């Protein structure tokens, strides 16, 4: 993107998010953060907003009651009132208690008012892991993809976490920004120092390849990369696409890749059934009919609530990806 190679620093996704928040609040006094426990001393349950309330005050970094409809509703009101709120919903599962404000209000107000009311709102939300049980580990992005009017963003790297979050905060429309607990502390990479923006709606090719395209995002980018590495050792060349944003969806990059590889796997943590992969598979098939050498394969979570027991973990693994690629190549 940038003309010159920017200065970078190795940091965790948590640090990158914190840095984006500091920069955004510093640059624009209209940027506010609200949510449960977001203020110091704790600075957010994952400490992602650490230091912000100390620096910008509790008017701008506002800890709230446990009242998610209130939080998102207030954020919508703040947006209508000329501010750029960032609202934190601790776990994505809790969008179920405020979905009305997200879906019926944030996502629709611009349209219903004939363009007179913009809602420049960023909702940051976390996806927990199995260890929290079935009500704290759902990957619900498909619901929001199916809701016209809200952008859906899922970073896989620390650099993207910073760059995409800054773009969401700038964006004139509501964005749902999804932070996976699995990545927040363990994902470390080179992050540009200072302001850094990754445009919404541009997928990234994480690894070039020419035999099979693996299309994924979020936590599963790692799985895909691990599988691609393993396959490379077997002499199989896999291209890995990290979608980065699900809305807007960068089908151009996807189609260009699959036009070349003629085989595709879509991979995500969300349930396979009626999930994001179904849309991707359908669009690829519609567009590349006659070019595809095999049907697009989908790998996602099975049809059950998230099981707590370790033995029941049901997200796709690198082995699953390797097997799917093998199947596509007829091995």
């Amino acid at each position, binding site marked *: 993107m940038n003309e010159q190679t920017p200065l970078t620093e190795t940091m965790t996704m948590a640090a990158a998010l914190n840095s984006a928040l500091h920069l955004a609040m510093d640059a624009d006094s209209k940027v506010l953060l609200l949510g449960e426990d977001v203020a110091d001393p704790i600075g957010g349950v994952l400490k992602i907003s650490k230091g912000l309330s100390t620096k910008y005050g509790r*008017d701008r970094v*506002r800890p*709230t*009651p446990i*009242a998610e*409809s*209130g*939080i*998102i*509703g*207030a*954020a*919508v*009101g*703040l*947006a*209508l*009132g*000329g*501010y750029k*709120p960032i609202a934190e919903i601790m776990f994505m599962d809790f969008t179920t208690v405020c979905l*009305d*404000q997200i879906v*019926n*209000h944030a996502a629709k*107000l*611009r*349209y*219903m*008012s*004939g*363009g*007179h*009311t*913009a809602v420049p709102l960023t909702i940051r939300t976390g996806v927990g892991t199995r260890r929290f049980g079935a009500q704290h580990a759902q990957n619900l992005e498909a619901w929001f993809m199916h809701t*016209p*009017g809200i*952008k859906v963003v899922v970073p896989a790297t620390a650099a993207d976490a910073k760059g995409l979050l800054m773009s969401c905060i700038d964006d*004139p*429309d509501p964005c749902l920004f999804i932070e996976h607990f699995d990545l927040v502390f363990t994902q470390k990479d080179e992050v540009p120092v200072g302001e850094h923006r990754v445009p919404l*709606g541009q997928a990234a090719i994480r690894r070039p390849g020419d035999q099979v395209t693996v299309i994924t995002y979020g936590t599963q980018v790692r799985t895909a990369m691990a599988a691609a590495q393993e396959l490379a050792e077997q002499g199989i060349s896999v291209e890995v696409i990290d979608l980065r944003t699900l*809305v*807007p*969806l*960068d*089908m*151009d990059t996807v189609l260009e890749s699959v036009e070349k590889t003629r085989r595709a796997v879509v991979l995500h943590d969300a349930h396979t059934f009626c999930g994001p992969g179904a849309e991707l598979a359908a*669009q690829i098939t519609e567009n590349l009919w006659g070019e595809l050498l095999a049907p697009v394969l989908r790998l996602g979570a099975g049809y059950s609530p998230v099981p707590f027991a370790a033995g029941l973990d049901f997200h796709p693994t690198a082995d699953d990806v390797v097997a799917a690629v093998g199947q596509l190549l007829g091995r």
Partner: protein
Amino acid sequence: MLTTSELQDMYRLMALITATSNRACAEVKAGSLQSAFYPVRGLEGVCAALGVAKQPGDQLVSTYRSLGDALAWGSDLRRVIAEIYGRADGVCGGKGGPMHLHDTSVGYMTSTGIVGSGIPIAVGLGIAAQLDGPNSNGTGRAVVTTFGDGATSIGAFHEGMNMAALWKLPVLFLCQNNQWGEHTPIAEYAGSTDLAGRAASYGMTAVKVDGFDPVATADVLREALERARSDGGPTFVEAMTYRLTGHSGSADYSYMPAEELAAALERDPVPSFRRAMLTSGQISEADLDSIEASVAATVDDAFTFAQASPEVEGHLRYRDVFAEGASLAGMGVRA
């Protein structure tokens, strides 16, 4: 104390609301207006009081039963009616419809069709007003949100009220208590019908007022708005009225106890205010008549305008999903 000109303004507003609401219902019944319209008969006094109590710069969040609020807030009648018809000249370009009037030009920020959902949104506008502080004239901005008695049962009410009390926000929560939530009377859905009592339990000033008395209501609303503008925190006002029609433009009201409705109709805002003005001599009969005549003409004009307004053109279907420039291609919309 209200001036004569304010009393006249109130009467004009009430008469306009009654006439517009009745006309819209008639159009719905005749099949010439195909939209879900919610009459505002019974609320005229509360809306008129709001109209005189508000100040420029104040902001409103209303509901699906918003016609009276919209007129009180100064929205253009022609464009409001055009919106109800879903036409190109509507305040929302026809995309919103009667449940979703918006008119930011007068600070009418949004309307919601989801019972109670406007309350947290008003809280957010209240935070914005509080953060912005007083304007150059030294006055703050107040935020008003209207909702029905039935809305006090839903979670969003509770969440928003607590936040407003906690942060002492400049918000007036105006409960238009018409004693009914659709077809269910208040006693059948509320553990206690003292709604103001609920508001007080959050630590908020809470006042009950006779919503059929526009003068008393205006006093209470002025005080609440003053409190908001001078950083004195939120107020809950429970304006007691009665729904003088069925729930929606087409609905029957057979289920409403006849005596109760008859008693309420005795207090129908426009005729009772007229009587009161004549008795006290505050407005002359000639002035009242002339107001009514001008109202009738205005309403006719607005409906004529709306009916003549063009249908919305198909190519606008995907405009305003996002701000201009965002591509919808990946979501299947061809440019």
